[in-house]
């Protein structure tokens, strides 16, 4: 029976993932990678187990995120088992003749020793090594008779200052998560009061009766809604519009394929347009935030909307070419019945005000995460959303993103990300080639993995290239992160690439080949378009 076979291979995949993940977690404990701090080794273990579990879906992806936060708190936080009561081991330097100082050989790290400031902090200084032996004789003006140096340069506190566990826990309430929560609240209320459906019916009216324009309308509406709601819910909702149409079309008419494909594509693309459109955007924004770079809601839209519109147009043209409809006209039956209860009206007002404030952040300066609290507060205070609605929010998505942000923190501050990228001499590569590499890797990975997971694994690498200054001239942290983020959202080759793709596939109206065809066009031309924007347009906005 096929079902049994599938169960069997699922189980094999789980076991392989479990074994690989645990091996990956343990490797850094038994091997010493030169140039990587002790904490970096632990972070590498966490990175490997998370990457494997996310790739093999050994655990649900949000549980892997929870595991990541747990491991970080246990191993890498000030309060954790490794660092809770450690101090730097110290030893005084011993005066030798001729202004030389004797230090233990273990204290020497290349040509550096570390002067102890307090139990956890030190200052590295360069010394001139004069004589090797049991103890090393060095020369330096920074050393004096009362200097205490770190006696073990491999100690776990060297190269890493443990941070409080609240930094890891706190990712779940970081501004970007609150921004998403605001988006979830708006989306959930819109579904509850059918705002999404009614808007769709109103917005579709001007697109007339010609099949290709109906599809264009569907795509624009889908993209608009999915810029604010989850791509999945938007796709499902639009399918309830598209299915009755598809059912009335002749089986052989390619309009059916065009219709069914257009919705997931538009939903995937629409997610790019706003910070809250889809979780990979959150990963990009959170990583940039940690480097002190803030992207306002409106600036994000200004950066991404041209790309999203370009890709929508591209997809539409490509589908017209591959699946020309034979039907000449089709009469849509669109009836919008906006609810007029006071709660529904409160929702309409809150929705409008929130979106307006988000888009005008540049003029009033209120951060978008604070604005996101307006719908959270008003819609619950006025009982537009009740306890059950709050419980039904997609909390697991927030956990997934929080785990991703948390992992990024440790990849950065243990030096792991830097160590990973520094093995390749990136400065030999022209900027454009570097962006292309990141874009293509992101595109490939996220066709098979969750888009969020791909962003989680790749964005910290880009960030550390920026902070380490190893990326060569003209490197822009923002642009590189944006290219990765948008490439993650362009992955729509296969039914498994995104939930909207899976929904469209399940209708039975399209074949995998159809999806691959359009997905390839979007992926390849999409990356090219992103690179063009990254070269000519994005720098203008970022200034």
């Amino acid at each position, binding site marked *: 029976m096929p079902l049994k076979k599938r*169960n069997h291979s699922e189980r094999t995949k789980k076991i392989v993932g479990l074994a690989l993940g645990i091996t990956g977690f343990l490797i850094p404990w038994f091997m010493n990678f030169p140039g990587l701090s002790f904490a970096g080794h632990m972070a590498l273990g966490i990175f490997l187990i998370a990457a494997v579990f996310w790739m093999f879906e050994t655990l649900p992806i949000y549980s892997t995120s929870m595991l990541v936060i747990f491991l970080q708190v246990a191993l890498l936080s000030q309060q954790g088992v490794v660092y809770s009561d450690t101090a730097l081991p110290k030893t005084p330097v011993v005066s030798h003749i001729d202004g030389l100082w004797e230090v233990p050989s273990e204290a020497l790290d290349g040509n550096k020793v570390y002067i102890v400031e307090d139990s956890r902090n030190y200052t590295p200084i360069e010394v001139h090594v004069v004589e090797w032996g049991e103890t090393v004789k060095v020369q330096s003006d920074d050393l004096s008779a009362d200097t205490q140096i770190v006696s073990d340069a491999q100690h776990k506190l060297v190269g890493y200052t443990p941070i409080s566990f609240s930094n890891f826990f706190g990712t779940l309430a970081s501004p970007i998560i609150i921004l998403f929560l605001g988006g979830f609240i708006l989306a959930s209320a819109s579904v509850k009061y059918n705002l999404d459906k009614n808007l769709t019916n109103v917005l579709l009216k001007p697109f007339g009766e010609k099949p290709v324009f109906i599809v264009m309308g569907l795509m624009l509406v889908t993209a608009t809604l999915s810029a604010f709601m989850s791509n*999945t*819910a938007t796709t*499902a909702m639009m399918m309830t519009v598209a299915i*009755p149409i598809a059912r009335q079309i002749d089986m052989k008419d390619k309009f059916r394929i065009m219709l069914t494909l257009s919705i997931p594509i538009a939903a995937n693309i629409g997610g790019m347009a706003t910070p809250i459109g889809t979780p990979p955007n959150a990963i990009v924004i959170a990583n940039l935030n940690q480097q002190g770079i803030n992207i306002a809601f409106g600036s994000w839209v200004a950066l991404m909307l041209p790309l999203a519109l370009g890709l929508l147009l591209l997809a539409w043209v490509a589908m017209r070419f591959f699946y020309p409809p034979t039907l000449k006209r089709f009469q849509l039956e669109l009836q919008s019945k906006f609810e007029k209860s006071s709660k529904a009206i409160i929702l309409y007002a809150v929705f409008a005000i929130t979106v307006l404030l988000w888009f005008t952040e540049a003029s009033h300066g209120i951060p978008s995460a604070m604005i996101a609290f307006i719908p959270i507060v008003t819609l619950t205070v006025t009982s537009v959303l009740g306890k059950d609605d709050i419980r039904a929010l997609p909390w697991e998505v927030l956990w997934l993103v929080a785990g991703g942000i948390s992992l990024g923190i440790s990849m950065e501050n243990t030096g792991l990300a830097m160590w990973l990228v520094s093995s390749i001499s990136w400065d030999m590569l022209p900027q454009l080639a570097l962006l292309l590499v990141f874009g293509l890797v992101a595109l490939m990975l996220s066709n098979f993995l969750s888009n969020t997971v791909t962003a989680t694994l790749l964005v910290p690498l880009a960030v550390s290239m920026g902070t380490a200054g190893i990326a060569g001239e003209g490197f822009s942290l923002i642009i590189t992160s944006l290219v990765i983020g948008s490439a993650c959202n362009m992955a729509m080759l296969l039914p498994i690439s995104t939930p909207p793709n899976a929904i469209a596939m399940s209708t039975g109206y399209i074949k995998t080949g159809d999806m691959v065809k359009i997905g390839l066009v979007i992926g390849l031309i999409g990356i090219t378009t992103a690179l063009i924007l990254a070269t000519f347009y994005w720098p203008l906005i970022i200034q």
Partner: protein
Amino acid sequence: MSDIYIICVEDEPQVLDVIIRDLAVFEEIFPIELAHSADEARELIKEIKQEGHKIGLALCDHIMPGDKGIDLMIEMQKDPFTEKTRKVLVTGQAGLEDTIEAVNNAKLNRYIAKPWNPRELVEVVKEELTQYVIQEEKELLRFTSLLDQEKIQEAIRTKGYV
């Protein structure tokens, strides 16, 4: 992942054949099992339960040798394993009293009068199974192509995830 079964209980082999033929479209995802009497049905339910599968729909004749169809359905309603199973009575001979009892005590979902129109039977089965999977299943996508697409998409929309 467990399978969701359709079970048909009917004493006349010819009628059973017709039901099978009419419902063949569903077999791709919902395996169909047959029983010729209430006793056989009980065995069948036990077997399906032991193998860790579920029963989504029971189509049941009323007048059979041994226990009547309605008695079987009431039993199924009391058993937690089959409580959520959608129950359809397919009969030509159930009187008013039996029917009332079935609706009240077996939470009968549908009543199909013999002889039935095959298209109508398929529609009823489709609708009942759609209700069942929306209520009982988490991953709905594998059912979409066979069942009521719009209702399933609507369920995904309100749940917000696949």
